């Protein structure tokens, strides 16, 4: 555990000259009890961020290594546990890569059911994100409304698969559970409700001052930069790149359902908010169409436990962007190599580029904007190289700093109200641990 003084000095100064005007802010790693831990070294010049150095891996569990000693089928449900929000799409992508090696065909009904679940997952993930954006911007009413509406889609997922988050719906060449009967009308009705709500939220974010001040002209990045840094998903689409695996390389039933790929060219965090709300409407349309046109037939083909030798890669559009799986088989019961790449990894270089030039107060908004799979700012310590002063802020304090920075006139009563709710939430979380 011991580090040499030289190494420690390098750590603290991020390789900068010791007497420079720039100061270094270590950001994270974060309390694992709330969300996921992350660490960024932020180099500041006054209030402006000039450089960001990431240090990830605090929750690296070695899934790729673990996959090499587990049977093919077991791996599918292990990879589903990669993420607690977009779980289904991981098993789908891994499954597709393996299915290609087996030469069995996936039944059409299974393809439609996969599409329905994947799109419902996108709706729930996007709603979760819009709520978090509201929270970090200092607009907790939005957070509570949106998360309440998110329950609607989670209930549907539970009714279909039996679980809210880890659906375990996929199997090789099919799905494990059929769609329940008599759910068609209910799903269509709920999708219509969610479409109306998304349109309403769209109106809210375009008119509400809190959201406009915090998100407009924040986190700009050029189209060329995003393309060079290989951004994926909404992070590519918000600068005008038509980058969507559903459109470019259709899988499941995406070549048969009406696809509406949304792009914007505004390129700020506000555009990302609009884009994700528009995508939500598009996803609701896909679900309604797929439910109404669900073909009859079998839902699964049985696949032998030994997968023929070969290698294949597959990519899918997760809510956060493209995910990628590569599998290599030597003809045994366990894979020889599985590689998985998640969208946050691909979007991290772009996010660092977005942070440059922003102020300290914008960190929560910009980092949440990429919809990170870690996105928590629970604890950060500050270090000022000029005065040798260190201090630590909790995530809530950082949020308050951001809110006060933009809205200094807000009444203390109003701030106190938000804080009271937050502290009651924190207390409940602490009690549940």
């Amino acid at each position: 555990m011991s580090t040499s003084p030289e190494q420690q000095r390098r750590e603290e100064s991020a390789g900068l000259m010791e007497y420079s005007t720039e100061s270094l802010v270590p950001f994270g790693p974060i309390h694992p009890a709330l969300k996921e831990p992350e660490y960024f070294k932020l180099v500041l010049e006054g209030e402006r961020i000039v450089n960001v150095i990431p240090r990830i891996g605090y929750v690296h569990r070695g899934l790729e290594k673990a996959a090499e000693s587990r049977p093919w089928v077991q791996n599918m449900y292990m990879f589903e546990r990669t993420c607690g929000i977009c779980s289904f799409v991981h098993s789908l992508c891994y499954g597709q890569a393996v299915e290609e090696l087996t030469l069995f065909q996936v039944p059409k009904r299974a393809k439609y059911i996969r599409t329905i679940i994947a799109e419902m997952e996108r709706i729930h993930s996007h709603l979760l994100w819009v709520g978090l954006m509201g929270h970090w911007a200092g607009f907790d009413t939005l957070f509570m409304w949106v998360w309440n509406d998110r329950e609607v889609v989670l209930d549907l997922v539970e009714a279909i698969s039996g679980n809210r988050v880890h659906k375990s719906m996929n199997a090789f060449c099919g799905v494990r559970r059929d769609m329940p009967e008599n759910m068609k009308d209910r799903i269509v009705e709920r999708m219509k409700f969610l479409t109306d709500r998304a349109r309403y939220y769209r109106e809210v974010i375009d008119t509400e001052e809190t959201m406009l001040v915090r998100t407009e002209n924040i986190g700009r990045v050029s189209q060329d930069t995003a393309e060079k840094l290989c951004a994926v998903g909404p992070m590519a689409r918000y600068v005008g790149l038509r980058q969507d695996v559903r459109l470019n390389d259709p899988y499941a039933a995406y070549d048969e359902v009406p696809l509406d790929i949304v792009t914007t060219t505004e390129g700020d965090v506000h555009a990302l908010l609009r884009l994700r709300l528009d995508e939500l409407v598009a996803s609701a349309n896909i679900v309604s169409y797929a439910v109404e046109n669900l073909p009859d037939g079998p839902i699964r083909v049985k696949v032998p436990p030994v997968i023929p030798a070969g290698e294949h890669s597959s990519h899918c559009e997760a809510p956060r962007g493209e995910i990628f799986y590569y599998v290599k088989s030597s003809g045994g019961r366990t894979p020889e190599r599985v590689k998985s790449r998640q969208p946050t990894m691909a979007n991290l270089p772009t996010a660092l580029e977005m942070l440059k030039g922003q102020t300290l107060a914008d960190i929560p908004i910009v980092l949440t904007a990429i919809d990170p799979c870690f996105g928590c700012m629970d604890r950060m310590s500050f270090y000022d190289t000029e005065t040798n002063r260190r201090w630590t802020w909790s995530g809530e304090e950082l949020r308050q700093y951001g809110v006060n920075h933009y809205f200094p006139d807000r009444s203390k009563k109003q701030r106190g109200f938000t804080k009271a709710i937050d502290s009651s939430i924190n207390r409940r979380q602490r009690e549940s641990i």
Partner: protein
Amino acid sequence: MSETVTKLESYAEEVGTKVTALRKNENIVEVPQDKLKTFVAHVVNDLHIRHLMTITGLDLGENLGITYHFSLERDTIHVRSFVPKTKPVAVSIVDIVPGAILYEMELHDMFGIEFAGNPWKDQKLLLPDDWPADLPPPLLKTSKADQIRKRLGLEVEKK
């Protein structure tokens, strides 16, 4: 045969290798290390395939395989290169594809491959800072999960 594949074959010929079709719209090219940058520059600048999905490392016994997965719409191109296990030094493509920076760091951590030219190559990305120097990189076949757990003191006593 699509236009992309025809062009790809001419670039492959230039560096003295050939294109193998894995399946429809999916091709693999094996390129030697010294010609890798020339070939990747052709793919990125001339074919305009700018999206690098990721880089995969492979333990192939004596050699380590490095596969760059490029994609443009329906086309997927895997560019594979090899480095010997005894001297795992590869060229970095960060100056051509800036988005490759984290993937190269990941391979450095997981396979011990050093990418000459990567600005952050001395920094760890996924492994802990105090990862013991005598332990082999975790994704090599010689590295066993039990051994890593024991060495890092993560062993859980079985009841």
